[in-house]
C-alpha cells in the first residue's frame, strides 16, 4: 500500500469520527465545528515542540574535529614517507 493511502485512510477515519460527533452532539455543536482547527493547531504545536527539543538536544562533537586534525597529521606523515604526492602544506 502506498504511504499516501495510509495517511489518507487515517484522515478519512478522523473525518468520519468528526462527522459522527456532529450528528450525535454529545459535545455542543459550536465546539465540534472547531475541533478540526484544534487538531491542526495541536499538530503544529507538536511539530514546533519536536524541532525545539531536537535543537536543544542537538548532539555536537567539537572533540571530534580535534581528533580528526591529529589523524590528518598522522596520515600526511605516513603518506609522505611512502612517497605519495600530497602537496607540501
Amino acid at each position, binding site marked *: 500500500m502506498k504511504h499516501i493511502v495510509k495517511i489518507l485512510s487515517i484522515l478519512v477515519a478522523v473525518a468520519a469520527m468528526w462527522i459522527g460527533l456532529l450528528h450525535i452532539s454529545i459535545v455542543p455543536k459550536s465546539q465540534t465545528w472547531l475541533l478540526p482547527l484544534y487538531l491542526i493547531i495541536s499538530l503544529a504545536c507538536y*511539530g514546533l515542540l519536536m*524541532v525545539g527539543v*531536537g*535543537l536543544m538536544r542537538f548532539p555536537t*562533537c*567539537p572533540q571530534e574535529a580535534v581528533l580528526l586534525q591529529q589523524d590528518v597529521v598522522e596520515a600526511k606523515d605516513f603518506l609522505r614517507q611512502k612517497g605519495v604526492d600530497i602537496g607540501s602544506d
Partner: protein
Amino acid sequence: MAEKQEREKSKFSIIVPTYNERLNIALVVYLIFKHLRDIDFEIIVVDDGSPDGTQEIVKQLQQVYGDDRIILAARPKKLGLGTAYAHGLKHASGNFIVIMDADLSHHPKYLPSFIKKQMETGASIVTGTRYVSGGGVHGWNLMRKLTSRGANVLAHTILWPGVSDLTGSFRLYRKSVVEDLIRSCVSKGYVFQMEMIVRASRKGHHIEEVPITFVDRVYGSSKLGGSEIVEYLKGLVYLLFTT
C-alpha cells in the same frame, strides 16, 4: 551456521565517489587501512574526471597498498551520485558494500562498528546516524541545525521511515540489496540517500543503526541553500506518493 559461514567469507567493498578530492582521498585511504585490520576489503574510488589529479594520487596509493585493494573506477565527467554507486558496484567483488564520502566528514574509524553491528544482527543495511547519543555533528551553525531538525521532523511526520537519520550517506549494505535499491531509486543528490533508505524500509529490509559523528568538511565549504530545501521538499512529496 549459515551466519558463521557468512562471517568467514565476508568481503567488504568500500565505494568512495570523488570529485577534486586529491588530498582527502589519500587521507581516507590511509585511515581505512588503519582501522580495518584483519578484515577482507577493497576500496573502489569512483572518480568523475577530477581536474585536480585525484586519479594520479589513487594510482600512487595503489603502489603503496596494492592494486587489488584499491580499485580506480574512473568516469569521464560528473555524472551524478546514483550512477556513481552503480558504476562502483560493477567493480565490486565483496558480498557487502560500504558507501561513504571522501571529504572526511565520514570517519573510517566507525567502519568496525558497522561491520560488528551487521554480524551481530544479520541486518541487510546498517546506516550511520548522527542524531542519537554517541553520534553528533560539528561545524554547523544554528541556522543549519534548525533546518536539519525541521527537515527531520517533517520527514518523520509524513513518511514514518523507521530510521533516525534519513539524509546521512555513511551506510553498509548487503550487495544484493543495494543493487536492487539503486535500480529503483531515481532522485539526485542527498534526496537520493533518503529515497534509498525509505524504499529499503518499505521493502521490509532489516535496517540497523550505529552512531557516527559528522565533522563538516574541513577543506572547502558545505552547501545548503534555498534550492536544496526546495529539492528536499519535492523529494518528500515524491516519496509520499511513490513508496
